[in-house]
Every structure is written in structure tokens, then in C-alpha cells.
């Protein structure tokens, strides 16, 4: 009985420790990475799908420049980071951001081309992994 109690206490202490360290690390990492040249990532949408792997993997603190091209006008929404862009055919759209938070974030499309409201569909996922 006491075993389970100390176990939980140790778990909480350990968790608190990890929490603290991950916070301070990410701050330092961000400042350092801000000076490094951004990683360029090109994503192509064809026939309402992302060409190739639809999971984009990043590392926490990475500076990213994402260039989106599409064959049909679309409004994109990166969840979590809450970035919204409109992309039109023949006009690549660039977004740059620092991947400050870890997690798996859906990139959804709102209304392809005709804008008659196709609800929203998940096009890709952006995964930001810890260092």
C-alpha cells in the first residue's frame, strides 16, 4: 500500500522535474535557433491532397518557411498554431514561423475552389517533436 503511495509521489516529483526542464530548455532553444537560417519546406496540393507524405515533421524551436502551392484555390488552417492562409493556383504562398510548441497539428482546408463550403477536410499534419 505504501508502495503505491511513494510510487505516485515519485512519479509526481519526476513529472514536475521534467516539466521544469522542458520549459527552460525550449526558451533557450528558441533564442538560439532564431539566429539560424530557416528550413524551407515545400508542400504541393493536387486534387485536394498533399503530394507525397502528408505528415510534416519538425523539431521544437525550428524556424520554418513553408511554401504552399495548389492547383485549386483553397483556404488553409494550421490548427493549434492557428495560422490561416489563402492559396491560389499559380501563386505559391509562403508562411514562416518558429515551431515553438510540440504536438501534432492538423492542417485543414476550408472550401476548395468553388467556396460552397465543403466543410473541412484534413490535408496534412504538422508534427513538432521535442529536441
Amino acid at each position, binding site marked *: 500500500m505504501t508502495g*503505491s503511495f511513494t510510487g505516485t509521489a515519485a*512519479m509526481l516529483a519526476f513529472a514536475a522535474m521534467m516539466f521544469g526542464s522542458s520549459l527552460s530548455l525550449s526558451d533557450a532553444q528558441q533564442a538560439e535557433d532564431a539566429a539560424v537560417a530557416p528550413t524551407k519546406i515545400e508542400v504541393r496540393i493536387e486534387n485536394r491532397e498533399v503530394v507525397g507524405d502528408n505528415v510534416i515533421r519538425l523539431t521544437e524551436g525550428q524556424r520554418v518557411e513553408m511554401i504552399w502551392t495548389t492547383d485549386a484555390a483553397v483556404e488553409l488552417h494550421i490548427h*493549434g498554431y492557428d495560422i490561416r492562409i489563402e492559396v491560389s493556383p499559380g501563386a505559391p504562398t509562403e508562411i514562416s514561423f518558429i515551431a515553438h510548441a510540440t504536438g501534432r497539428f492538423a492542417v485543414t482546408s476550408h472550401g476548395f475552389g468553388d467556396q460552397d463550403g465543403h466543410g*473541412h477536410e484534413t490535408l496534412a499534419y504538422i508534427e513538432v517533436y521535442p529536441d
Partner: protein
Amino acid sequence: MPTVAGRRCGRALVTQALRALLVLVTCAMPITAWAHGFAERYDLPVPLHLYMGGAAAAVALSFVVVAYFVRGDRTVRRYPTFNVLGTAAGRLITGPVVRFVLRLFALFMLVLVVVAGLIGDSDPFNNIAPTTVWVIWWVGFAYISGMLGDLWALLNPWRTVYEVTEWLYVRFKPNRRLGLNMNYPRGLASWPAVVLFVWFIWAELIWPNSDSPADLSQIVITYSLITWSGMLVFGSANWLRHGEVFTILFGLLARFAPTEYVAERREWNLRPWAVGLLPDKPMSVSLTVFVLLMLSSVTFDGLLATPLWAEIAPWLLMSDLVRPLVLLLQDVTGDAIAAIGTIALVVFLLVFQLLYLAFCGLMYVVTPARARVNLSVGELARLFVLSLVPIALAYHLAHYLSFLLIVGQYMIPMASDPFGFGWDLFGTSLYMVNIGVVGAKFVWITSVIAIVTGHIVAVWLAHVVALRRLRDSGAALRSQIPMLFLMVSYTMLSLWILAQPVVETS
């Protein structure tokens, strides 16, 4: 969202009746269906090495627990307690003023949810109702119950309303009692709660409108009316024990918590973790079913967001066996995805019950009749079901940790503008949710540790129950082999789900 063309005529009456039953409002909004009620999780899948490490630790530590019991009689019957009410600080934090404020606050939140749903903005992220219900209350209260104790028994706003009404009634009509105060039929047991719980599980996991404030408000009103009707007919104590889902649900989780309230002696005790899950006698059949529903619904919630389900769902939709059922159900559930989800949910809940019963059957077979002291398969099932609770609780904590900390932040802007009217009561309406509040590493490690710990506690509990109830200790240990197998499988499933990338099926 794909919608299979519906054929409405002919079934209109049935459909309408079902609609009324499920309180599906006709102004159904085409909002994307998220699993677990509202908003999304941003969790990264637990990496393979942690998943494998957790699995290995669960198995290895199971044997440590077994070895511990093999070494002698460890059938702890009593445990140390410490009465917090015996200290001045304890009396202060549990005093009438604190209790009054807490109960008033809970009541205020219930009214706020209903009002926000009725008059507030229809955008779930611009109305306080969905976050309050699904994140703070449903997810958050499970945490509080499991970690702190049975706070719901005190806060329950439905009980508060009923008690105040009762008090007023007696003031104005002395010598009379509110309600019918009928005897509660024994045969009914906790079946009303089981039925209402299935409805709640469905609303949480499948219902496409669960994030619509107006619809949410309607089901809260409906549930409130059912609860008060039950109390009026059978008296509040009876209905709370047998019909109020959340009193039972949070009460079950609070059995894990390190506190207990002993009404007879007016003690609020600190106690070792999880000892509340050691039953004195077999649970009733209805409560056993209730516990199994709790376990399976938590797991099903996780399964709904896996790539596996994303692949199975469209396949089921196309299969000749399921498709007619989907066409039949989708008018009631709102859309085809919800229909297929409903079917899967029902099947999963049933299979889980049967699997558990099958393992209890195995336990029955491997335990000699002499040692079993005439316990039937059913009695074994009712005796051991509580020992599985820590695994479900641990999975719940792991699954929702980052969700609670991230989505819970919506309460900050919404506190200032609960109805989405553009108010700024506390100057926080422009607060932006910080998605970086917890790192993935922290969530991974906490999740795996929680799940392994939950597993170990479960194995320990089942062994204690076996040693207490079965006659010879060798037979008791043998009886635990099937149980151990079940628990390891259940824990593996939890870990496996956490190692899956979250995908939304639409």
C-alpha cells in the same frame, strides 16, 4: 463529411420517437464531429521505445507484485487513516462557509452552462458552455475525483437545487414531505444510471452536436429534469445512489483517491491510495455493468482517434452487412459517421462486457471449487471488477493531460465573455491559448508512468481481493493468472492507443 442518401418516409414515426429520446434538436448544425465532445487533442504519439519500455515494465512489475504475495499472507484488512477534521486547518478548509461557497459555485456553473447555451453565441469557441461541460467538468472532475476525493458528492448542483426546494417546501407546508417518496424497487438496482450512462457516453463520443452550445444546453436541461423527477419519485438519496450517473461515476473514481468521508463518524480521512477499490462484498450486477461501461468507453474514446478506426470506418460504411443499419440510423444520429460510430460503440461496449465475463469464467475454471467457496462466475465478476478501475483512470489521466491543460485555457477568455457578446468582465477576453504550456516529453513520460502505475495498482488490488475471498492462498494466486493476462492486455491496449497518431475520421 460524407452523408449517405437517406430514405426518410415510412420510418418517420420511429425516427421521431428516437429523436425525442436522444434529444437531437432539429436545427442540427453541420459541425465537424470531434471525438470526446469538444475540441481536439494535439498529442504526439508516444515514441516506440517508451511504448515498449512501458509495456515491458508493466509485465515485469506484475511479477514483482505476484512475488510479493507469494511470500506470505498480505491480505491487509485494515489500513491507516488520518482524520483531517481532527485538525484546526482541516476544519477550516471543510467548514460550512467553504462548503457553501463551493456548492454555490457549482450551482452557478450549471446555470451558466444552460443560459450560455440558450442565449449565447453558437460558436463553441465563443461560448463558455462546451468547454465547461466537456473539459472542465467531464475531464477535470474525473481528475479531481481520482486524485483528491469524492468532491462531486458535495458539489452536485442537482442535489443542491433539490435540497433547497425541499427546505422551502417544508417551511411553507410544515408536516408534509416533498415528492412521492416511493420505495425504490430493489430489482431496479442501479439500472437507471446504467441506461443514462450509455446515453451520456453516446453524447460524449458520437453525437455530432456535442459541441453546439444550444444543443448541449438542451441535454443538460433534459438530464436535470430526469434527475429531479427521479428524486421527486424516490427521494433524493435513493436517486443519487441508483440513478444519478455522475454521483456513481465520480464516486467510483474517488475510490482510488487518498481521502474518504465517513458519514457516521463525521470523519474526513486521509488513507492510502486505491484502498477504496477493495470491495467488502460483490458489487451489484448493474454496478458491475456500469464499471465495465466506464472502462470500455474510455478506451473506445481513444480508439476513435486512431488510424485503425479511420480505416475501418469507411470500410464498414461500404460493407453490405452494416450499410443498411447505417442508413436506418443516420436519420437519428445526424450523419453517417455518427451512425457508424454508434454501431461500433454498441458492439465495443458489449464485446468488452463479454470478454471480461469470459476471463472471469477462466478464473472460475482454474480455481478449485473448494477454494472458491461456492462463488459463481457472476460473483467473481462482481467481486473483481473494481480492481480494473485504476487502469481506466490512468488511461484517462494520460489521454487527457495536455487536452485539459491546453483546451482548459479557453476558460480564461470565456470567463470575461461567457456568451460571446463581446464583453470583457475581467479584462481577459483577448487571452490567447498557449499551446506550448506542456511539452510532449513531459506528457509522454507522465502518461507512461501513469499507465504502468495504474496497472500495478490493479494487479495488487485483484490479488488482495483473491486472498481475502478465496480459501487457500495457492489457489488464490492461481486464480489471478487469467486476471493478470486480462490486465496486461488492457494495459497494452492503453499504451498502444497512446502510441498511435491522433487522426480525425470525417
